[in-house]
C-alpha cells in the first residue's frame, strides 16, 4: 500500500492547485470548480487517515463534506445565474458594487 504521506502530499498538491485557481481566475464558474477541487483534496486526506487509523469516522466525515459541497455548488450556481442576469458578466472583478 502507498504510505499515508503519499496521499497527504497528493491531497496537498490538489488543495494548492485549487487555491491557486480560486485566486487567479476571473470566471466565477471556474472559481467554483476550484473550490470543489479543494473540498475533494480534503476528502482524500480524511479517507487516507481513516484507512491508517482503521476507523470509520474519516469516511463518515467525507460523506458530510460531499453533502456540504453539493449544497454549496447549488447555491453558488444560483448566485452566478442571478449575477449574470443583473450584470451580464460572471467575472469576479466586475462585480464590485459592494467595494465602496
Amino acid at each position, binding site marked *: 500500500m502507498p504510505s499515508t504521506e503519499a496521499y497527504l502530499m497528493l491531497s496537498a498538491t490538489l488543495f494548492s492547485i485549487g487555491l491557486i485557481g480560486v*485566486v487567479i*481566475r476571473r470566471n466565477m464558474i*471556474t472559481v467554483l470548480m476550484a473550490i470543489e477541487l479543494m473540498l475533494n483534496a480534503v476528502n482524500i486526506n480524511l479517507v487516507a487517515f*481513516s484507512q491508517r487509523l*482503521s*476507523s470509520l469516522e474519516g*469516511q463518515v466525515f467525507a460523506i458530510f463534506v460531499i453533502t456540504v*459541497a453539493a449544497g454549496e455548488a447549488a447555491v453558488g450556481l444560483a448566485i452566478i445565474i442571478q449575477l449574470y442576469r443583473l450584470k451580464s458578466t*460572471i467575472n469576479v472583478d466586475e462585480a464590485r458594487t459592494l467595494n465602496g
Partner: protein
Amino acid sequence: MDALTQNMPFLVFFVVGTVAVASSILVIAMRNPVHSALFLLLTFLCVAVLFVINSAEFVAAVQVLVYAGGIMVLFLFVVMLINVRHLPEERVLSQFWKGGFAVGIGLLILFATIVRPGVYHDPVGRDRNLRSVKEHRTRRIHNADGTVTLKPYVRRTVVGNSEAVGMALYRDYLVPFEVASLFLLVAMIGAIVIGKRELSAAEEETVQDFIQDRVDTEHEVKEAMSA
C-alpha cells in the same frame, strides 16, 4: 508476477495520482468552462479510484454518484444556460494572479515540510475495522454465590464497507445526519429563491392567462388522446 501484484497499489496510486494532478491543473488552466468541467470530472473519477484503494468503497460510490453525476451536471447546465462567449484576447487571469501563485506555491511548500516521509509512526491499521459493525452487548455471569454480574463487551461482525458506514451514520452520527438533511433542504430552497426570475409587471398581468392557456391545452390533448 508476484512482484507485480505486490507493486500494484503503488502503480495504481502513481498513475491515478499523476492523472488527478494533471487534470486538476488543466481545470484551472482551460479558457472554456466546458473543458474545465470535463477535466474536473476526470479528477473526480481519479479521486474515486483513490478512495477504492483506501478501502472506502461506499464513499467512492457516493463520490461518483453525487459529484460526477449530480454536481457536474449542475455545472454543465449552468455553463450552457449562461453561454458566455470568451473573446480570444480577453483576460483569463485576475489582477491578483502573481499573488495567487505565490500563496499557492508557498502553501504547497508549507504542506511538504509538514508531511515529510516517516512523520507518522503509528501502525498501519487493518481494514477489517472498516468493514465490521460494532455491537455493544452485556454478558450475564452467574457467580458461585448466586449473584449475577453484568459484563459489557463489544462484538464485531464483519459485513461490508457500505453496511459499516451505514451503521456508523445511523447510529453514531444520527444527529449530524439529520442536520445534513436539513442543510440540504435549506440549500435547495435557497437555490430556488435566489435563482428564480422576477417577473416584470407586464408578465405579472398575463401570468393568469398563460396558466389558463396551458390548462386548456392540456385538456385538449387529453380529449384528443381519449378519443
